[in-house]
């Protein structure tokens, strides 16, 4: 035990007051975009080794971390296993599997990255989807010797279903095929063909050996002397910045809540797309009541805010005291959202109970929540095999109108089995712009 600390003096000032740098208006500086990358591939094609290699080569591991992994491996009676860096649960280490998704950050050449390790076992598919859905980019690993396997194809399909279209393919274990260029070219062609069928065009296909550290951070002049393309890290860096596509588009202010903590009546929400300005006329759907924005509330900011853009959380007060509540959607008079009783959706059913036609479910779209029913099924993909099984005709029907259109098709639609265990919810997303054009109620009352 260290000595008991002394009491503080009566006039002790316990707080340190940093000088404010300008809040949200403060741009640039050390703040930087961070790219989230999910690593997928067939089991034993070298996922964990690659993640370990990326972290080690970029010197992102704190002191003692590798030693701790070595100790854990010894206790489990295993040779050194990079996977233990991320598979932190005892159950994962004992069985050498990944149960739940993990994220770990690293930095390279001033850029921040976050690696998402998602489980591949089919019983953990909800965890895999949870991990992969957060990714902006994917590394798909292929063993140079074994080539494309069932899981390689499944994971490719999963990426396309989740809309992760930025993919780098890494052909790993090139050392095991004597670094042969012909072998790489065959796999390059094969994987491009397969992903092409899923409408994914890989940004790069690169040969590497994660174990040998070849062409991950450092290019390899001996075995891979024939390779004129980028290293894996270089390929990752070249994609940075392209993620930061803000949805400009029409105004979609999703209302989260209305607060009356003091004399103000504050509408709190998020700008899914578009901009707001003080003085703008905003129409709130589905009630179609209109008011001008009186103020944008920004606690902690000494300067009044006049305008906010897409992606920002907002708190506003209105000129008119119109009825607004959670689930409403604010828009300008031009380009209002469309409303519909029916929608076509692509869903992941992750519940343990089967989904049944006509069974009531809770349908969530951003902060809107309504009861809905599955009317018909169009196309079915087997979650175990992640293979397309069959095609039929399909539709969803909902009670009550909901504002819905492509501006919030992703990533804010979810749903739950009605009245079931809320923790086992199953998200859904809406697909296809063509649907919106065909199935909508006239978007604006005719004057």
């Amino acid at each position, binding site marked *: 035990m260290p000595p*008991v600390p002394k009491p503080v003096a009566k006039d002790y000032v*316990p707080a340190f007051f940093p000088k404010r740098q300008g809040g949200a208006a403060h741009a640039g500086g050390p703040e930087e975009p961070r790219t989230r990358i999910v690593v997928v591939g067939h089991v034993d094609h070298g996922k964990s080794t690659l993640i370990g290699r990326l972290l080690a080569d970029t010197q992102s591991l704190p002191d003692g971390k590798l030693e701790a992994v070595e100790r854990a491996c010894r206790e489990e009676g295993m040779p050194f296993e990079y996977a233990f860096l991320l598979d932190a649960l005892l159950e994962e280490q004992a069985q050498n599997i990944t149960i739940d998704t993990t994220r770990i950050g690293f930095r390279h050449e001033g850029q921040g990255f976050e690696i998402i390790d998602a489980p591949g076992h089919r019983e953990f598919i909800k965890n895999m989807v*949870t991990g992969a859905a957060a990714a902006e980019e994917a590394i798909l690993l292929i063993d140079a010797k074994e080539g494309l396997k069932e899981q390689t194809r499944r994971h490719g399909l999963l990426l396309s279903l989740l809309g992760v279209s930025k993919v780098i393919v890494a052909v790993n274990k090139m050392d095991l095929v004597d670094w042969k260029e012909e072998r790489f070219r065959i796999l390059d062609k094969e994987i491009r063909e397969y992903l092409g069928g899923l409408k994914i065009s890989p940004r790069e296909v690169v040969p590497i050996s994660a174990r040998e550290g070849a062409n991950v951070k450092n290019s390899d002049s001996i075995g891979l002397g024939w390779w004129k393309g980028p290293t894996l890290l270089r390929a990752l860096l070249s994609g940075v910045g392209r993620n930061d596509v803000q949805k400009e588009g029409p105004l979609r202010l999703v209302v*989260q809540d209305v607060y009356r*903590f003091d004399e103000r009546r504050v509408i709190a929400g*998020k700008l899914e797309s578009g901009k707001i300005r003080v003085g703008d006329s905003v129409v709130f759907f589905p009630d179609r009541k209109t008011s001008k924005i009186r103020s944008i509330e920004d606690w902690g900011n000494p300067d009044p805010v006049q305008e906010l853009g897409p*992606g920002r959380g907002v708190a506003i007060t209105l000129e008119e005291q119109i009825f607004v509540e959670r689930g409403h959607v604010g828009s300008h008079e031009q380009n209002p959202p469309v409303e519909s009783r029916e929608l076509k959706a692509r869903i992941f059913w992750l519940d343990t109970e089967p989904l049944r036609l006509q069974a009531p479910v809770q349908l969530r779209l951003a902060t809107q929540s309504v009861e809905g029913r599955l009317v018909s099924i169009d196309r079915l993909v087997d979650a175990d095999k992640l293979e397309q099984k069959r095609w039929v005709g399909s539709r969803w029907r909902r009670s009550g109108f909901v504002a819905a259109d492509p501006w919030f098709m992703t990533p804010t*639609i979810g749903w739950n089995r009605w009245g079931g265990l809320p*923790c086992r919810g199953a998200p859904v997303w809406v697909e296809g712009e063509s649907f919106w054009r065909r199935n909508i109620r006239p978007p604006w009352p005719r004057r």
Partner: protein
Amino acid sequence: MSYLQHLEDQSIYIFREAFANFKNMAMPWSMGKDSNTLIWLAKKAFAGKIPFPLVHIDTTYEFPEMLAFREWARNHYGIDLIVMVNEEARKRGVGYESHDPVTVTHELKSLALQQALAKYKWDALVTGIRRDEDSTRAKERYFSPRTAENEWEYRDQPPEFWGQFTTAVKPGEHVRVQPLLDWTELDVWEYVRREGIPVPKMYFAENGRRYRSLGCWPITQSIESQVSTIDGIVEELKTTKTAERAGRAQDHHERNAMQKLRAKGFM
């Protein structure tokens, strides 16, 4: 939009989703940098008013400087603060003088929190944990349910994506709402600097030592450092190879100590 701005907006969204969906929330508050960032974000989310109480789980082994900060902040922000001590365990003689740090942490933090949950019947608790602190926290959800026994069922976590969260619980259960999950230690300090958030003085060097992570005094080590400004902390973090919680004894008491603690209700 900068990454820090993205993190702020996301955290505010999480705060509001929690408040809209739960009836009886509270926010455990440890006075540290993450806790103070949470207060700041909550003030922004709710336009200046924090509409739920804060809870300090007082282990009775708090640094006097931190208790002084607690009283200062209570007054400065006008927060509704509940202080909770596991008196029963202290009467039994549970303490660092006689027990190992994992046992004490469980008894004086996790069980004290459980007693508070039983008393106040909260259905959601806002925590300041981050993925980069610990490899089991790296597997967490933004909305992470706990059983009636305050346990984390890490083998079977709910799916969570696209901004839809687990927002309903059965009686006796609660959800941990974790707005800082995506933040790193560096993000927190850069945000503290950007916004000018008051933090405890103990993070800044005095006589060549400072605290990087703050907990109970018997098991919290300071680090060697000359840093006395936030710019200095930011620079130090960019080059350090030492883990943030290296100076927190309960984490390293045994292999997977954090998993065991967290499965039983530790944050």
